[in-house]
C-alpha cells in the first residue's frame, strides 16, 4: 500500500524557510530574557545569595542598594521579615515557570485531543465536547479556580492539574476549527480512502498541520498562566508558604506600600518582564508559523 505521505498534494507541515525564522529584535529580546529566567529557575540554589525563607529580623525592610540606606549585602533589599528579595525572586521563578509551562502542556494535551476528536468525528461527540467548552467559557475562570483550589487544597501539582483541566478550551476551539477545514483537503481524503485508521489519519496527517497555531497559542498561554498563578497566589490560593511565589510576595508587599515600595514593585516587574518576553516570542511565532501571514 502506498504511503500517503507520497501522495500528490501533500505538503510537509511546519517546514518554514529559514529566512522566515529570522529573529526580530523583540523576539530576540524575548528569547534572551526567557533563557535567563529558565536558567535562574534551574540554578536557583547556586545563584541565590541567601536562603529565601530564613528570616533575619536585624535586616528588616532594607531598601535596594541604589536607594538611600540601601546595602550591597542585599542588592534588591529585604522584606518585612528580613528575607533577601533577590533570593526570593530567584526561587519564585521556579513556581511561575512550572505552572506556566506544565499547565500549558496539560491544557494543550486535553484541548488538542478534544479539538481533534470533535472536529474529525462531528455529530453527537462534537456537540457534547463543544457543550463542555461553552460551559467552561461561561464561568468566570478565576472564580472556578478559587473554588476548586479551596475545595481540593493548594499544592503545586494540584494547581497545575486544575489549571490544565480548566484552561484547555482555547486549544480545543482553534484545533477544531482547523480540523474542520483540513478535513476537506485532498490529502486527508486520500488517507481515508486508502483505508487508514482514523486515529492514524489524525495523528500523522491532521495533527502536524495544526501544530503551527497550537505552538502560537501555547506560547501566549504560558504568559497568561504565569499571570494567573500570580493572581491566585496574590489572593492566597496559590502554592502555600514556605514555598516562595511572586504573587505571594506582591500580596505581602501591598501591606508595606507606603513605607517599602520595592516589596510590591519588584516582583510585579519580574512578572511583567517574563510575560512580555513570552508575548514577544508568541507574536514572532505567529508571524512565522501562521500560513495567513506567509506573504
Amino acid at each position, binding site marked *: 500500500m502506498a504511503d500517503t505521505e507520497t501522495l500528490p498534494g501533500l505538503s510537509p507541515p511546519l517546514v518554514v524557510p529559514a529566512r522566515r525564522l529570522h529573529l526580530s529584535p523583540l523576539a530576540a529580546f524575548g528569547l534572551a530574557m526567557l533563557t535567563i529566567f529558565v536558567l535562574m529557575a534551574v540554578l536557583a540554589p547556586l545563584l541565590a545569595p541567601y536562603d529565601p525563607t530564613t528570616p533575619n529580623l536585624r535586616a528588616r525592610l532594607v531598601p535596594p542598594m541604589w536607594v538611600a540606606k540601601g546595602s550591597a549585602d542585599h542588592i534588591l533589599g529585604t522584606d518585612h521579615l528580613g528575607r533577601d528579595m533577590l533570593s526570593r525572586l530567584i526561587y519564585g521563578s521556579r513556581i511561575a515557570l512550572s505552572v506556566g509551562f506544565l499547565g500549558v502542556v496539560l491544557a494543550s494535551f486535553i484541548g488538542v485531543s478534544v479539538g481533534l476528536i470533535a472536529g474529525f468525528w462531528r455529530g453527537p461527540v462534537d456537540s457534547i465536547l463543544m457543550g463542555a467548552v461553552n460551559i467552561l467559557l*461561561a464561568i468566570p475562570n478565576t472564580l472556578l479556580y478559587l473554588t476548586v483550589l*479551596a475545595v481540593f487544597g493548594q499544592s503545586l501539582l494540584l494547581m497545575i492539574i486544575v489549571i490544565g483541566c480548566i484552561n484547555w478550551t482555547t486549544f480545543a476551539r482553534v484545533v477544531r476549527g482547523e480540523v474542520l477545514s483540513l478535513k476537506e483537503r485532498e490529502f486527508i481524503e486520500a488517507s481515508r480512502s486508502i483505508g487508514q485508521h482514523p486515529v492514524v489519519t489524525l495523528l500523522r496527517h491532521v495533527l502536524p498541520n495544526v501544530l503551527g497555531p497550537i505552538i502560537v497559542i501555547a506560547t501566549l498561554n504560558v504568559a497568561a498562566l504565569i499571570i494567573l498563578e*500570580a493572581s491566585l497566589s496574590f489572593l492566597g490560593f496559590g502554592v502555600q508558604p514556605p514555598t516562595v511565589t511572586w504573587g505571594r510576595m506582591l500580596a505581602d508587599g501591598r501591606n508595606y506600600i507606603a513605607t517599602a515600595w520595592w516589596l510590591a514593585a519588584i516582583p510585579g516587574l519580574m512578572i511583567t518582564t517574563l510575560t*512580555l518576553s513570552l*508575548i514577544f516570542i508568541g507574536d514572532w511565532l505567529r508571524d512565522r508559523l501562521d500560513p495567513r501571514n506567509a506573504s
Partner: protein
Amino acid sequence: MINYVIWRILQMIPILLGVTLIVFVLLRVSGDPVLLMLGEDAQPEQIEALRLALGLNKPLYQQYLMYMADLLTGDFGNSLRYNGQPALQVVLERLPATASLAATGLLFAVVISLPAGIVAALKQHRMADHIASSFSILGQAMPNFWLGIMLILIFAVTLGWFPVSGSDKPLSVVLPGLTLGSGLAAMLTRMLRSSLLEVMQQDYIRTARAKGLSQSTIIVRHALRNAALSYLTVIGLEASALMAGAVVTEQVFAWPGIGLLAIQAINSRDMAVVQTIVILSSVIVMSMNLIVDILYSVVDPRIQHG
C-alpha cells in the same frame, strides 16, 4: 429577530445546566453540608435528623433534581456567614458595586482604546503608533493587580489624588476602574489598530478618498463602522475576563462587590454564597454575549438574525 433572541436564550439552558452540575459536584465534594451547618461538635442524632430533612440520604441524581428545583424557585440556600440570610439576597446587595466597577472599567477601556487604536492605525510605523502599540503590549503583559498596587502607590499614597481603598468617596471608583479596564483597553487597541489597517485597504475607502471626503469622515462613517464588528466581539468575549478581573481588583482596592464577597465566602466555606456568585456571574457573562450578538445586527445591517 425575536425568534433569534428566543433561540439564543434556549441555547443558554443546557449551558446553565452544565454550570449548575459543576457547582453541585463542587458543593458535594467540598465537605459535609450538615457538619458545616451544625458545627463539628453536633450530636449524631442531630446530624442524622438534618441529613434526612435535607434529603442527603437520597441518591445523588435525586439530590441534584431537588437542588435544581430549589434554584428554579430562587432558593440558592442560606449564607452561613451572614446570619442565615438568603444567599441570593446577600449577593444581589453587592451586585451594584461590581456593576459600577465593571461599567467604569469598560468605559475606561473604550475611552482609551478608541483614540489609541485610530491614531496607531493612521500613523502606522510612526512614533504615535509605536507608543500606542507599546502601551497595549505592556497592558497585556502586566498583571492587573500589580498595576492596581502601583496606581495606589503613585496616585493615592504619593500624590494623594485618590482614596487608597473603599468605595465611599466619588473618586473611589477611578483607580479600580482603570485597573480593571487596562487589560481590555490594551486588547481593544491592538485589535482596533489591526482591523482598521485591514479596512483602510478596501476599495470603498479609496473611493471615499477619491470623492474628497475628509479623513475624519472616512474614519468615522466608513472605516470605524466596519471595524466595529470585531471590536464588539472582543468586548463580548472579554465579559468573562472582566468579571474574573473584578475578583482580583476588588481585593486590591477593598471594593465591596461580589468579587470581594466571593473571596470571603470561599475562605469561610460559605458555599451557598459561592454557588450563587458562580451561577449569577455565568448568567451575566452569557447575557453580555447575547447583547453583543444583538448589537451586531445594529452595527452591520447585513447580519439579519431570524
